[in-house]
């Protein structure tokens, strides 16, 4: 494979093939390293695997491709505004069900922008949740004794354990 390569092929953890452009891959350090490996490797047929499932990887690549032009060349303020709006829609419409997977992928792929965006989205969604809903999504058990619950209720009237 020559250095003029424009896109690389990667495998998801489910074994599906995905194409990602070189400029988009630059948003992630690990992806970028893979890219360099592929470009300079003698074994051109090797397809690197990314430990992210297909459903999540589609969205991660979509994010990378959208953000690539600005990340690589810098852009005007109006582009930045537009991108911000796109981010909000991206988080609102598409990723709610796989938000935690996106978070893990962004963390694993060292994608700061997507990571912060996903953390903020999760925090915004949590604001409207009850304590028991929070326990469910984070797989947490209520480990307060009834005495401790009573004490917390006294300190914070109106606080709920449900």
């Amino acid at each position: 494979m020559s250095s003029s390569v424009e896109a690389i092929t990667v495998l998801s953890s489910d074994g599906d093939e995905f194409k990602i452009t070189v400029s988009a891959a630059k948003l992630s350090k690990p992806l970028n390293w893979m890219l360099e490996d592929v470009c300079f490797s003698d074994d051109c047929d090797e397809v690197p695997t990314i430990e992210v499932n297909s459903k999540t990887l589609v969205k991660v690549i979509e994010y990378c491709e959208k953000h690539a032009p600005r990340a690589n060349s810098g852009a005007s303020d109006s582009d930045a505004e537009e991108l911000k709006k796109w981010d909000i829609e991206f988080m609102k419409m598409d990723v709610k069900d796989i938000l935690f997977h996106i978070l893990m992928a962004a963390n694993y792929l060292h994608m700061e922008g997507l990571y912060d965006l996903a953390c903020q989205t999760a925090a915004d969604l949590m604001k409207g949740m009850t304590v028991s809903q929070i326990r469910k999504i984070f797989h947490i058990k209520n480990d307060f004794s009834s005495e401790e619950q009573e004490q917390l209720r006294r300190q914070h009237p109106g606080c709920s354990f449900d």
Partner: protein
Amino acid sequence: MANGGDEPFLPPEIIINILKMLPVKSLVRFQCVCKEWKNLFITPSFIAEHLHHSDHKNPFLLLHDYYCGSVRLLNQNMETIEILSIPFTHDLKIIGSCNGLLCVRATHYHGVSRSLCLWNPATRKIREIPQTTDDYCSICAFGFGFSSIVNDYKIVKFYNQEKRKKKEEDQDFTEAIRGYDGVEVYSLSTGLWKELEFGSLHPIRFRTTAVSADGTMVWLGKKDLNPVLVSFDLVTEVFTITPIDGVSPTYLGVWEDKLTLFWRGRDNSVDDGFNSTDVRLRLLVLVNLGRV
């Protein structure tokens, strides 16, 4: 996340990062989730990181109607977001606010005739600040500020020893000399008051309450009848007096964590005209005051 229950287990560092982005109100609610979260929310490192994240992200205006006794939170469009319930029964005076924490002077709180308190309306927690002597708060001048460098909140109090003495001797203390002759600082991290050197500040008088910006408290005052800015560096605990050339500003303010001076005047003149018609405001943003 919308359905709940099918989510993967997130590593702790990701969970903590999400929690840092929650408003204090949600954190108060979510301390009931489990012991680990409850303990996490009160660790100094989490508090500092949460503060660092939320700093300047949720700008609200606090409006205190002294006569109605109500404290309201307004958003940037001047719409009322919330009417705060006040845990003080009478005579609340807000000395200052930093990071959502209010420093207030209150009377009749828990039967204490006068007290100085730190009040967090979001968590509804109140911490009473110990008083050095019976302070006659009404004659003291206060300042409240935060420094991220030392990660500490401080309260500065100017007082008049002569007045204290006169009162103790049960004499007519209204005859005591006016102005201040002593100053002390309270640190929230140590929980102690400390006497500071007053010497070079004499004979200082204040025209405004203090504002706090960039780790510095500033008062607008007069020294030997000349307008001055008195600034206090929260890190070094050193006062700096900066003379003001020309007309004294009318107000002090803070803009993007920088001290701002306002002049109120008619047209282009910058007198202290209190004529409500055609009043203009002129403002000057100062950088690095007292950090020469």
